[in-house]
């Protein structure tokens, strides 16, 4: 089976890759493009460690076939910070110690950012349900939820005109 050529946009940059017809987007991001920030915890869409944003919606990249990305826009954890300036979600994860091993962290940050991009003032319950597709085994979620709420508050402040 010959490989498929796919043209796409990753973190704002045009990107082309060759892939097997059934390669996952996650495999291509990690193994072909070297973007190893997205993690594989299960390969079945049950842990969220591979969360990326595809055409504006967060998805498990392990459950996207790489050829499906043709012409689409992909945002990964590697594109969340602007240069070396961390996004408020990233900054709050650090300040609130919302990570222990850190393996699930990229998926949580991409998912949390996706939430705050559409809902600047989520309740704790909304945060918890939004993040229910991201498994964390270290933290018990407490500090993660607090970090996301704190990031939301900071983003609201930034958005409020002085």
């Amino acid at each position, binding site marked *: 089976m010959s490989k498929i050529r796919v043209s796409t946009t990753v973190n704002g940059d045009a990107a082309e890759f060759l892939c097997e017809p059934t390669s996952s987007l996650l495999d291509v991001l990690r193994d072909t493009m070297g973007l190893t920030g997205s993690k594989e915890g299960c390969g*079945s869409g049950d842990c969220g460690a591979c969360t990326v944003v595809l055409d504006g919606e967060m998805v498990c990249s392990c459950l996207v*076939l790489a050829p*499906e990305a043709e012409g689409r826009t992909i945002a990964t954890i590697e594109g969340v910070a602007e240069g070396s300036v961390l996004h408020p979600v990233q900054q709050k994860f650090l300040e609130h110690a919302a990570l222990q091993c850190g393996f699930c962290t990229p998926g949580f940050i991409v998912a949390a950012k996706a939430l705050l991009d559409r809902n600047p003032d989520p309740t704790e319950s909304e945060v918890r349900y939004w993040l229910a597709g991201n498994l964390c085994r270290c933290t018990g979620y407490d500090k993660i939820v607090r970090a996301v709420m704190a990031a939301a508050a900071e983003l609201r402040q930034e958005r409020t005109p002085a």
Partner: protein
Amino acid sequence: MPSTAYHAPGTVEDAVALLAADPTARPLGGGTDLIVQMRAGRLSPGAVIDLKRIGGMSGVHRAGDAFAIGAATPCTALKADAALSAAWPGVVEAANLIGSVQVRNRATMAGNLCNASPAADSVPALVAAGAVCVIAGPSGQREVPVEAIPVSPGKTSLAPGEFVVEIRFPPKPAGGGDAYLRSTPRTEMDIAVVGAGVSIVLDGEGICTAARIALGAVGPTVVLVEDAAAALVGSKLDDDALAAMSQAVQAASNPIDDKRGTVSYRKAMAGVLARRAVLIAASRAGAKA
């Protein structure tokens, strides 16, 4: 090892032709079941036919006062459609219990249906709503009720080359309301141990004039329980009617013991969830009782 081809046809006709050419080919909607099964080695289709590039396959459409949902429409897009959510909240909620947000951004109701799992969350709600599928195939298009699609776990009534292109809803009846509830050990990221979809119509006096009650995970396919509906019709959904309805639901439940639940628990929950769903549907129907 046979390798799998990927095709992204632009028309229904091309998709039909590709599916018809290879009986092992599988349509790809959201991929949240198909890709998992391929990854686990349970399925190795000769080709996957991505339906998402076909015009009109994604999105909620209105034809008069009836809704039609393209087969490639992800579940979260249903929630974003205010009119659909107002008309069929039970269906929209059911579709948005599947998996996680990430999964629902990909998963489709048509895929949920054609995966033919008895525990599919959106299916009892669709059956209760009286939805029908538009199916495209080598001999053109046909319409069948949703409940006619799954025939056994993992198997559908679709012929080779056929796939669901659209799910159509009947016009929302005046005084109608629907609801779906499921039982799962976790709050999210889970498979229904039991699911109950309900659609009822109440008249101005709060008397139930029509009902459809469908159950998930209590049999090899979704179960439409006519006796349960009959127990409600003509009543004001009083305790006796609800009890009779729950009994009919339990009687119609023929579940199995498996890792997700026991027979006795599933039967008991079918009755409880159906009753709770009826009450939610009634409140949505604007019951005056």
